[in-house]
Each structure stands twice: as C-alpha cells, then as structure tokens.
C-alpha cells in the first residue's frame, strides 16, 4: 500500500488502530438534587476544557493556519459553547435524571437527526460536525477512554483515519514509532507534528488502511510513503537494513555539525536558519547553522489582545540578539494580513487576501506600527548583528518610503539618547514577480535580497498554493520561476549586494546544486534541513553545479528538469 510520505524514516512495529469509538449510554440515573447540580457542573467543565483545547490549538506557534482553518476552529468553539445544546443537556439532566454523559449523547443524537433530516445537503453534512463536537466534549467527560490519551507500547505504529489537531498536541508520542492515516496531505497537522518530532509518517493512504488490525506487523517508510502489512521475512530484513542505514545516515548528519560548509573546490556556502523566536536558536546551532536568514516576527504579535509595545518588542529582539553568538540575524518586519490575522487589529475580509492589504502595505499605511517595530529592532541591534528585512516589496517607492520611516525611527532614538547600530543593513524579500524583474533597480537601494520562493512561485504561476485542485500547478521547477530566481541572483552579484534564499526551495536537496550553479551562496531553511544540504555541498564542486545549471536553464519544461536533477544530484 502507498500513501504520501511526509516525515522521513523507517518504522517497523505493531499496529495500534484508533477508531472513532461510538459512545454508548449507560442508563445510570441520578439520585438527588446534589447529583443533578454536580452533573451540570461536569458538563460546563467539559465544555470549558474542550474550548480551551481548541484555543490552544489556534495559538500553537508550531502550527501555521490558513484563514479557513481558523474559521473552522472558531465555528467549532461556537458549536461547543452553544446555549441550545446546553439547554438540551441540562433539561435531560434535571427532568429525566440522566447522567451527564447519557444526556450529552442523547442530545447530540437528537441534534444529528434533526440536521440529517433537513432537505439541504449542506446542513445534512453539518450533522458530522455536531457528532464531532459531541465527541470532543464527551472526551473530557470520560477522560480515560479517549483513544489518543492512552499510553502506547514501545514501537507502536499508530493507524487512524486522521489525527485531529487537538489530538496531536495531547498525545504522548514517546513510544510511537510511526503514524499512518487514511486522509491528509503534506501540509496536514499530522505531517507537521510528525516532522517536528522526527517520527516517520505516511498520510493519505485511503481506505486500504482499514484492513489493518491491532498488533499487525507494520513497516512504514516515511520517505516513499510505502506501507507493508504483515510482510514476509525477506521484506522485514530488507527494511531492518534500510532503517539502520537511515539511522546511521542521520547520525552522520549530526557529525556534520562542525564541518565547514565548503564545496570541494573551496567555495564557502552560508547555511542559515529560519526561526520564529529565541528558543529556536538552540536547534540552529545544533544543526550547524551559521546564523539566521529569517526571523519571523509574527509570533510577537499573536496570542495577545493589543499591539506589543516598543519595550516588549525590544525584549524579544534583544533575546534573539544575545543568543545569536554574534552571527547575523535577519529580522523580517511584520508580515500580517493575507491569511495571518490579529484579533485586535481589525482587517476587513478581502476577496483575495494574498493580493491584499498585508505586510509592508500595512506598515506603510499604519506607519506607527512600523516605526515602533523599527525602533525596537534598532535598539536591539547593539546586542547582536541584526539586519532589517522588508517583506512583500513590489516597487522601489515602497523601499524608499520604508527607509524614510527607518530614518525617522533612528532620529527619534537619537533624540532620546538611546544607542543603536546606525549602519544597520536594510534588505528586502523578493517574493513578488515585479520585484524579481526589477532586481537591477532595487539592488541600488538595498543592502541585500532574500528570495522567498513560496510566494514568488505562487504569484508567478497564479496558483493558490492552498488550493488542492491546482496544487500540481504549484511548481517551483517551472522555467519561468527558475529564470526569475536566476535573474535576481545575477543582479545581486552585479550590484555587489548579498543574496540569500529563505523559501521552501532552499531546503530541497534537489535544487541545491542548481542554485549553487546560479551563484547562490546563502541558503536559509528550517534548522533540521541544514545537515542534508550541507552534505550535498561538501561532496560537490562548483564546476558540476555550473554544468547542471547550464543544462537545466536550457530545458523547456519542469518534468525534464526534475528528472534530470533527480538523476544528477541525489546521491
């Protein structure tokens, strides 16, 4: 069987099948008034916990949400806290003397039936939502019986239809060797969590997964997406070998930590990391990162009910600067809007949020927000090698305007006699096609470029990367995208400014040599990806990279490019 491999590694172990168990009523009736009150309290508490659980998911910094996800979670909160549901449950507890679980189960069954009976197809499918929130509340009423909170045997391979975001957080994963789910994609929560915890995972396996029973012997390959159920000894042996190779391979990567990232013919390559706060720095240095190519600042603005003050921001940047061991840290100014909303900053709903009021566009409109952030970064710049990076630049006026505001921030600090790095570098993200095409113009005004391939790809190809129907068109190997990237790198070199890449592509082993061939020498990626890329760099030279680059740029379609790169770069 085959699914989508989302977290590499080989897992061999016994299956534990998690079913969305059907809750049964017990028929136990309540005795007296005190029982009744206690049961109503239990319900309110369970509702409270269930809401809290969802709020925690929403605010988990490790998970990034699309606008759609947030609105689904918000709707779930409304369902859980619904006064009508509570009335129904309380009614059953007080007048029928049902215990709280029975009351909830029955109230949900009734509600599901009402919705199923409605003539409207949309409303019929909402019955599943109601069932789901019933289960969620119930989970908090009968804690011990919940599937995911149980303790697992060592080496367990978890088989489930899907793993809900809340479950991935509450689950004890220490004994879990692997995950396999029926539904899901590369960006689903299971994938993100598994990757973060280094647990092999395969998602999107489909109905085939239903044949797996508890304690079946399972082999799961998180790279290829292959799953074997009770395989022959021959396959088990083969995969035992593969697993050992993988483990020794990843151990070898750890040893690469202190190896200098330099090609065999002596070109030094800077491997930087993308981080969200000071705590991420430890993993950066553990993986041999040489600085921060992208410090996202959104985290600082989230999970709160007002904008952070200059002092609060200063504390955040200072902490990063102090822990950065003198290595460069590129701070991206706030990139909200689009799919990233702040509860206290009322942004209108837009038809095309990715083409809308976001990032630098907000900053140049609400200059108070931008100046506060600039001042905080400037103040922290005396504690480390901080640089400022502006996201979503589409033309040179925006750069000039932003630089005037930064100058104003400096002036305000000067007047207050607060010290800062007066010659702090200011660079821009290249993620809008117009910026890429005018790289020659922009290079004259900034100290560095950082190519953001995710948005650049989406905007160049006119493909919404969240839309499943067209996900095959989201193709970073499209010659149009490659030409833009190449042009940006050439222009940066010509104007003698730094150029780095901080998008997804920088961590794709398939593109390392191609980008090297284009002349890119600074790559920024998630800390975990650094060893893989370093391993490619230290085993190759720039002549080979140049050859690959020349051949790829002469090709007319991404299929050939991908095939060629697979044959020529992966070892």
């Amino acid at each position, binding site marked *: 069987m085959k699914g989508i491999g989302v977290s590499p590694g080989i897992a061999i172990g016994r299956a534990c099948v998690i079913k969305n168990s059907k809750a049964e009523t017990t028929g136990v009736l309540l005795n007296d008034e005190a029982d009744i009150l206690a049961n109503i309290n239990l319900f309110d508490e369970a509702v409270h916990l269930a809401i809290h659980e969802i709020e925690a998911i929403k605010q988990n910094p490790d998970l990034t949400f699309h606008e759609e996800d947030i609105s689904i979670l918000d709707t779930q909160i409304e*369902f859980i806290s619904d006064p009508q549901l509570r009335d129904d449950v309380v009614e059953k507890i007080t007048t029928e003397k049902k215990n709280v679980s029975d009351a909830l189960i029955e109230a949900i069954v009734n509600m599901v039936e009402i919705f199923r009976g409605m003539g409207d197809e*949309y409303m019929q499918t909402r019955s599943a939502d109601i069932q789901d929130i019933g289960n969620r509340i119930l989970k908090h009423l009968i804690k011990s019986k919940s599937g995911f909170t149980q303790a697992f045997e060592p080496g367990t391979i978890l088989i489930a239809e899907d793993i809900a975001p809340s479950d991935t957080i509450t689950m004890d994963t220490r004994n879990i060797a692997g995950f396999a789910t029926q539904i899901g994609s590369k960006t689903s929560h299971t994938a993100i969590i598994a990757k973060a915890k280094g647990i092999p995972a395969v998602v999107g396996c489909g109905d085939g997964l239903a044949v797996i029973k508890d304690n079946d012997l399972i082999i799961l390959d998180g790279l290829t997406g292959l799953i074997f159920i009770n395989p022959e000894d021959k396959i088990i042996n083969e995969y035992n070998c593969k697993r050992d190779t993988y483990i020794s391979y990843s151990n070898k990567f750890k040893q690469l930590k202190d190896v200098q990232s330099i090609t065999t013919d002596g070109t030094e390559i800077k491997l930087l990391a993308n981080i969200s706060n000071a705590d991420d720095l430890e993993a950066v240095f553990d993986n041999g990162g040489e600085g921060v190519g992208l410090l996202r600042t959104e985290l600082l603005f989230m999970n709160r009910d007002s904008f952070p003050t200059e002092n609060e921001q200063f504390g955040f940047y200072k902490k990063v600067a102090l822990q950065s061991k003198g290595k460069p840290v590129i701070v991206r100014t706030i990139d909200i809007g689009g799919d990233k909303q702040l509860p206290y900053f009322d942004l209108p709903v837009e038809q095309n949020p990715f083409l809308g009021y976001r990032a630098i566009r907000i900053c140049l409109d609400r200059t108070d927000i931008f100046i506060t952030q600039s001042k905080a970064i400037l103040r922290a710049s005396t504690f480390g090698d901080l640089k400022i990076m502006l996201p979503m630049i589409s033309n040179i006026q925006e750069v000039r305007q932003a630089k005037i505001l930064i100058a104003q921030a400096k002036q305000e600090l000067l007047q207050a006699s607060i010290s800062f790095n007066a010659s702090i570098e200011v660079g821009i993200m290249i993620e809008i096609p117009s910026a890429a095409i005018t790289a020659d113009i922009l290079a004259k005004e900034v100290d560095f470029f950082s190519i953001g391939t995710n948005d650049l790809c989406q905007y160049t190809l006119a493909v919404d990367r969240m839309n499943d129907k067209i996900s095959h068109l989201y193709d970073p190997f499209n010659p149009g995208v490659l030409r833009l990237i190449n042009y940006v790198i050439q222009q940066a070199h010509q104007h003698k400014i730094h150029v780095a890449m901080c998008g997804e592509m920088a961590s794709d082993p398939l593109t390392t040599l191609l980008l090297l061939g284009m002349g890119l020498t600074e790559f920024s990626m998630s800390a975990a990806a650094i060893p893989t890329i370093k391993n490619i760099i230290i085993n190759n030279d720039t002549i080979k990279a140049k050859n690959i680059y020349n051949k790829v740029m002469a090709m007319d379609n991404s299929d050939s490019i991908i095939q060629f790169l697979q044959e020529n770069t992966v070892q």
Partner: protein
Amino acid sequence: MITREYIITSAQGIHARPATTLIRLTKSYKSVICIKRPDKIVRLNSILNILSMAIKGGETVTILIEGDDEAIAAKAFDQFFNEELKAL
C-alpha cells in the same frame, strides 16, 4: 426595539462561517438579538439554532434588536448584511 429586513447576499446562505460571524457580532452587544422568518424565530446566540433554519441565499430575513445598545448594534448588522456577508 429595532426591526430590520435584509436579503441574504451570500450565495450559500447562512452556512457555518457567516453563522459564526453573526454569533460573535451578537455577543459583542448587550441587546437581545433574534432572527426571524415567517415560520420561525430564534435568538442569534446559538449556531445550532441558526443553522437549523437553513437560510438560503436570496431569502429575506428579519432581525429584531432590543436593548440599551440597539442603535449601534443595528448599524453593525446593516454593515454585516449589506457589505460583509457577500464575501463570506
């Protein structure tokens, strides 16, 4: 009490997302706010009740607002039904 009539401008009617927005809007005012159709009236604080009305795009509904802040609330509902709803 303030009474307003609106035509539902979202193609899919009042589905989960606009219902959620409506409830949150309602909760931000002290007034008691209800949604009414000839056959049914429910308070706008329960997503289950709102969805069970299965209000479709193009339908006309009546909103009833009563309380200290009914005038401001009515303005917000004007804005929601006349402008924001079509994007939801």
